[in-house]
């Protein structure tokens, strides 16, 4: 377990290093920090001496090292637009995005597991066949289209749900959260549904396919021969084996989910990191772009490490890699 964990940790650190190099080269090439500081009315000689003073003429690696040391202390530069530390600007928007992600994850887990499992157990049942048919349509509708269509139907035509923003939020341990107020919850419904509209069918199909394969296996037949209850066979013996590949795919989808938050936040004007990032791109607010990259990279790496650990907990062949099969 320890070896497994430390290997994952090393990998996470490596990925973060790569991301920081990419982020730094973006900063290095995009925009001119000097112009942002002093404007254009400075003579060439003065510019050069300022550049030297700021270390902008140093070799790449020296500059990167400086950037790296500052980044470790949480200093990712100052946003050109907001005139505040870029990291603070991003972190202000973090709760909004995480709220979307958690809401979506909750919906996906709550629905995909039971639907996928029952669709595998009763492949001929009409309702489940209908759901499977719907799922291929769900997979074919891009997230932003689901978002737009749901706004058109539920906000514009029916007027049931709000179409943009987070609504009323409250402060909780320094985080602004929306799910504690009725208004905030109403605002969460459409974005979360839109975001899960593509993940949910994907996981339903995956769980169904894996479960059907597992149900055909010898150990499930043996479990029946042991006279166990259906519940125990389906939800312990079969489901636990089904979950292994599902967890792996879940890990692969984290990046996609973050990308989809950008789309969803754009459609719903959701004041999260993704929306902020696109604004920063349009304004060429380099420090903010870089800060977003680092924060998203960090979230990505942490989430992936957690997924790997869960996988290790469920799969005994990973957990006990140190001991080997012993002979008679």
């Amino acid at each position, binding site marked *: 377990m320890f070896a497994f964990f430390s290997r994952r940790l090393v990998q996470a650190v490596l990925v973060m290093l790569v991301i920081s190099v990419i982020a730094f080269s973006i900063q290095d090439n995009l925009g001119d920090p000097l112009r942002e500081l002093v404007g254009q009315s400075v003579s060439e000689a003065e510019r050069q001496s300022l550049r030297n003073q700021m270390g902008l003429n140093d070799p790449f690696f020296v500059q990167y090292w400086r950037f790296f040391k500052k980044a470790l202390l949480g200093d990712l530069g100052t946003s050109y637009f907001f005139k505040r530390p870029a990291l603070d600007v991003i972190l202000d928007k973090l709760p909004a995005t995480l709220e979307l992600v958690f809401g979506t994850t909750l919906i996906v887990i709550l629905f995909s597991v039971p639907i996928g499992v029952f669709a595998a157990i009763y492949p001929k049942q009409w309702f489940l066949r209908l759901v499977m048919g719907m799922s291929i349509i769900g997979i*074919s509708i891009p997230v932003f289209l689901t978002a737009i269509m749901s706004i058109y139907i539920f906000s514009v035509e029916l007027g049931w749900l709000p179409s943009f923003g987070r609504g009323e939020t409250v402060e909780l341990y320094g985080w602004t959260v929306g799910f504690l107020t009725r208004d905030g919850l109403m605002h969460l419904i459409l974005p979360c549904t839109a975001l899960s509209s593509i993940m949910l069918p994907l996981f339903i199909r995956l769980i169904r396919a894996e479960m059907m394969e597992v149900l055909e296996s010898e150990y499930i037949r043996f479990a029946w021969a042991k006279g166990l209850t259906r519940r125990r066979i389906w939800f312990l013996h079969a489901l636990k084996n089904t979950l292994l590949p599902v967890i792996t795919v879940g890990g692969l989808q984290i990046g996609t989910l973050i990308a989809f938050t950008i789309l969803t936040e754009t459609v719903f004007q959701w004041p999260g990191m993704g929306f902020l990032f696109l604004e920063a791109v349009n304004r060429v607010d380099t420090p903010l772009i870089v800060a977003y990259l680092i924060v998203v990279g960090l979230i990505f790496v942490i989430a992936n490490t957690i997924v790997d650990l869960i996988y290790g907990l469920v799969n005994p062949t990973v957990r006990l890699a140190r001991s080997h099969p012993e002979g008679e």
Partner: protein
Amino acid sequence: MIASAWRRFLGSYLFFSFRRDRIAILSFVVLCTFFLASFSASLLAPFDPYDPIQIDIMDSEIPPVWMEEGDQRFLLGTDAQGRDLLSTILYGSRISITIGIFAVLLQAFLGISIGLVSGYFGGRLDNFLMRLADIQLSFSTLMVAIIFLAVFQALFGTELYEKLAIVMLILVIGIAEWPHYARTVRANVLAEKKKEYVDAVRVIGLGSLRIMFKHILPNTLSPILVISTVQIANAIVSEAALSFLGLGMPVTKPSLGSLINSGFEFIFSGSWWITIIPGVVLVVLVLVMNLLGDFLRDVMNPKLYKD
């Protein structure tokens, strides 16, 4: 030669199952219609959306003909700039499909080459390439594309970027998705390598390149076909998403995604058709490709790489 191949196809299990599957036939017909209509857009479309002379801003936001304020000239209505929506959609589908196909060709080229090399030579090279594939897959394509395109847009400035957009989209989507092909081809190569005939041709003294291209590659064709169908659909969706974010095709030369984007703000004022009609077209296009992909996978049941 072609005639005999055609006859062989007609007698194949693939064609047999196809004839019995109504959904597959319908999807295929719809897909063919799409391809034909969009590639003959310049003949079929009543207007040329790229020609400013044909566009009159006074015609903007006219609803489709079946609605009260519809206009006979514009079957599906007009967008906010007064362009005929039907023509714009035809031209837009052409751009979407073109990007989809070329991006997938690039993916397939990279993925198949890397997969063949990785599977055939094995060892450290294989380890390295597959590790790279894992990492690349775990970063989502869309995420990488968004960041990449955003930085390039900021670097080039919007004007130059708009000219390069189509090439950039093909490159980004094409490069980001190679691992799907590489892993599947590699798995198949490993399976084929175990079979006797590969040893046999090696004994005859054929070089490894010849063996790979003449003997192993043809055996991996069915999984490649299955992946490609779904990948083109994915590429079209990715392109639409990027264009929707304003990182893809410009409004002056719109793909389906940028059309949807340009109409989005008007749904609040009731002009739903500018967004919803191209949206429905996009969904149908992607749906039929996914359905065909499902059909092919069920029938050919190839060895796909499982995550």
